[in-house]
């Protein structure tokens, strides 16, 4: 890295010890679960069941086909209720399908399992599509898209970095299902047409690293890649750069790389083996706002409120409920929203007073922005509404990773300023 650009990352205190070693708690919803029908983007969805229908775990409930095919499966067994609008983890209300759980959790086979070794690549990609697998980017981008037309792909990176503070869900899931990780990786490797797969994991997770290393002894196509303990090492661009020392424009496939999350590989392995869609997830509930931070295993569609109650409640009267980790996760001003099939954490922090002081132009935000932008300049340009300058400063490239606010010693909401600049750009485009 040349000396005239900053490190573009930083070490964060992860607080991972809060949840990395204690027991995983299983929480089963007692009454209703709410299955989100969209991601708040109001994409057309075709509901395939009627109010009063009996469903089982794994019953196909609905299907979205625009812009991508996303089947939605039930996570509990019980009776279908009404469609109801409620808050979603993306901080926008959207339609949820109510299922009244019968508490039995009877399973139905969602689709027939296949053997990826004998299936053709196309069959495998179709299988991924039908399983409803989604990336963990929060945007709920379906996994199969990346594998539709792979061109000149040489490396598949399985991302097990999990760089957000507090979150240990991926780590715990991996530890539980190491075999599935390898199995899923091999399946994705086939779908990707790449020659080799890399499992990228932070080097401080020694225990899991050694175990994976042992399992990889007879898997010549898969390698372990240990990354530094830096944020946002789990972001596609940072990770791909760390491994290939190359940068790309829009998608990693431009330089022959596909990146997929480790939990996605595991979920795929389980779907392949058992013919079931994702119904449960390991979710980290952590932060100083909880009495007992812990990883929970819950059916998706369960409300945060119910889970927090089940694990011992809040430790303060005034808390921030964050869907995701504290860096990129959004604060939701209620706990009445549900875990989605691609959630990985809920962070609950005590609300502490925080006051910004004037910017001292120290440039720390510039030096650490992982997208290589100049956040303080974008903020300055936004303050005087200089749209041309905002364009020149490439504000649209911001991934809202939160680094600039994190690093700012004057406690300025730098990221929010960049967001405002991005919004101003969007408005102009319209």
């Amino acid at each position, binding site marked *: 890295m040349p000396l005239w*650009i900053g490190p573009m990352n930083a070490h964060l205190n992860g607080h991972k010890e809060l949840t990395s070693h204690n027991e995983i708690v299983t929480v089963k919803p007692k009454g209703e679960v709410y299955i989100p029908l969209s991601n708040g983007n109001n994409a057309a969805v075709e509901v395939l069941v009627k109010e009063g229908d009996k469903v089982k775990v794994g019953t196909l409930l609905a299907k979205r086909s625009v812009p991508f095919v996303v089947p939605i499966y039930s996570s509990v067994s019980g009776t279908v209720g009404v469609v109801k609008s409620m808050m979603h983890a993306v901080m926008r209300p959207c339609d949820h399908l109510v299922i009244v759980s019968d508490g039995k959790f009877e399973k139905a086979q969602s689709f027939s399992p296949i053997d990826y070794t004998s299936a053709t690549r196309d069959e495998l990609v179709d299988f991924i599509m039908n399983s409803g697998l989604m990336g963990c980017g929060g945007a709920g981008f379906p996994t199969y898209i990346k594998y539709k037309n792979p061109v000149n792909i040489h490396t598949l990176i399985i991302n097990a970095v999990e760089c957000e503070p507090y979150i240990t869900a991926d780590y715990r899931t991996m530890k539980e299902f190491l075999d599935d990780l390898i199995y899923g990786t091999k399946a994705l490797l086939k779908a990707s047409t790449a020659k080799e797969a890399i499992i990228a994991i932070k080097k401080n997770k020694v225990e899991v690293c050694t175990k994976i290393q042992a399992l990889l002894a007879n898997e010549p196509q898969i390698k372990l890649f240990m990354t530094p303990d830096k944020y946002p090492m789990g972001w596609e661009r940072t990770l791909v750069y760390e491994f290939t020392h190359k940068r790309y424009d829009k998608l990693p496939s431009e330089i022959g790389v596909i990146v997929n999350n480790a939990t996605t590989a595991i979920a795929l392995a389980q779907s392949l083996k058992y013919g079931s869609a994702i119904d449960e997830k390991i979710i980290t509930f952590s932060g100083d706002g909880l009495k007992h931070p812990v990883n929970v295993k819950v059916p998706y569609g369960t409300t945060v409120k119910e889970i927090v109650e089940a694990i011992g409640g809040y430790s303060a009267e005034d808390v*921030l409920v964050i869907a995701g980790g504290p860096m990129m996760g*959004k604060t939701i001003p209620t*706990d009445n929203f549900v875990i989605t099939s691609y959630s990985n954490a809920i962070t609950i922090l005590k609300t502490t007073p925080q006051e910004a002081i004037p910017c001292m132009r120290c*440039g720390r935000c510039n030096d650490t922005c992982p997208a*290589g932008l100049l956040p303080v300049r974008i903020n300055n340009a936004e303050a005087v509404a200089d749209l041309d300058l905002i364009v020149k400063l490439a504000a649209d490239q911001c991934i809202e990773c939160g680094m600039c606010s994190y690093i700012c010693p*004057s*406690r300025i909401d730098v990221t929010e300023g960049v967001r405002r600049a991005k919004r101003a750009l969007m408005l102009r485009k319209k």
Partner: protein
Amino acid sequence: MKFTFRVSPNYRQPLSTQWIMTELTLCIAVVLGYNVVYYYLNPNLGPEYAIHALSMIATSLVVAIGTEALWAKFYAKKPVLKYLTQSFPWVTALLFVGMMGVNKPLYVIIVGSLVSTLIGKLIFGGFGQNIFNPAGVGRAFSVLAFGGFIASQFPDVVTGATPNQVMESLGWVITKPEAVTAYLNQFNGLWGLFSGQYVGAIGETNTLLIMLVGLYLSVRKIIDWRVPVVFIASLFTFATIIMYFKGMGWWYPIFSISTGGAMFGAVFMLTDPVTSPTSIPGRIIFAIGVAFLATLIRVKGHLPEGVIRSILFMNMVTPLIDRGLDGWPLKAMKKYAFTIGTVFAVSLLTVSFTATTISYKEPYVPEDSIPNLGDPILFSTLPTAGNVNIVSTTVTGDITTFVIETKGHAYEAEWETDPKPNVIEVKINTVTKTIVSVTFVTYHDTASLQYATSHPVFLKQFDGLSIIVDNSVDVVIGATFTTDSVIRAVNAAIAAVLTPQ
């Protein structure tokens, strides 16, 4: 239950601006503290100087904090304590006083600290808004308002010319080995120069200590290490070029980074975030720019202390640098490399060209660096006999001519194995009781000081002075041991005239 909403991220690094400023303050305090202790332990100075240095520091602090407090209360109309803890006036105060010599009277500090805070910072809108380095503004103002040689606080002050002022008087080129040694020996050699074994500004002299402090601040990520490193490396490179063209030794580049507040500027002044560019390439260009200008100002501008002026100038172009580098850095790496390279190359060429145009100056002393005979002081307080020896007395009418040997600086300096006295001729009119003239017969002290002390302008100051003013002589303060030796000679002559045989 209350569920508060706040924009993400909701995670902040432990390092806060308040803490950055606290550590910075402590680091400046360490550097100033060194000098206070050095004055205390130095046999030529002693507690009096240490106390004066402390009063300077205290004065500067009180003035800066007081000014901001009043500003907060009556102008900004904000809670005073909160305003102060978000504005850090003490940092400016300490930096300003660090650049002032210990011989400065307190009124200079009061005015300078006030100007730093008010003009340098508050009228721009306070912390974060100012364009110029506030301490630099105060320092530049003091030089303009009170002159380089501000009236001294101490009659017997040993704080003579600073290394750069002496160097300036020599045209920035010394090649003869004896002259180099003589020059450096005034500051206890190159090592003494580097490690602050001489008297100068109360924060600037100990290059070594400031370097260590800078290292600490870099490791702690309080300052960006690139700024001091690029600045010092550039200054060193430019000096090396001059050294090469003029056939000087390696002492020259080392001298160049050890004096004139170079290291103090590098670690504390250039790294001021508010007044330097916000991007890394910007800060690199900024640092090269200051080094380049400081080099030029030193060798061509006839202004010895160029670092502060250069910083102030580069502060002015900071907004331009920021503007010029606006873009998407990740996509502009080549452009940045090219820009930095170009700036450095142009500076290098200019310095090389300049180096060919400068040469060793025959003793020329700019008028304002000649020790001046400040306020009248009592005859009895002057250093007198012991070291003087009247060699001959010739009476020609009203005029009596004394030839006097007097032990000068050579006797104080440990490195002189065979010190010889200066020989001075003093003519006194015994009727009008005035000094007619003072001239050097032979000079045996440190070569470089000779130019100041034996300079006609210096010696001319004695002419016509009355030798009786209520039993006192209305001369003389000196600036160095050598001036003392002149004064001793004059005193001996006066004593000889006033004491009946």
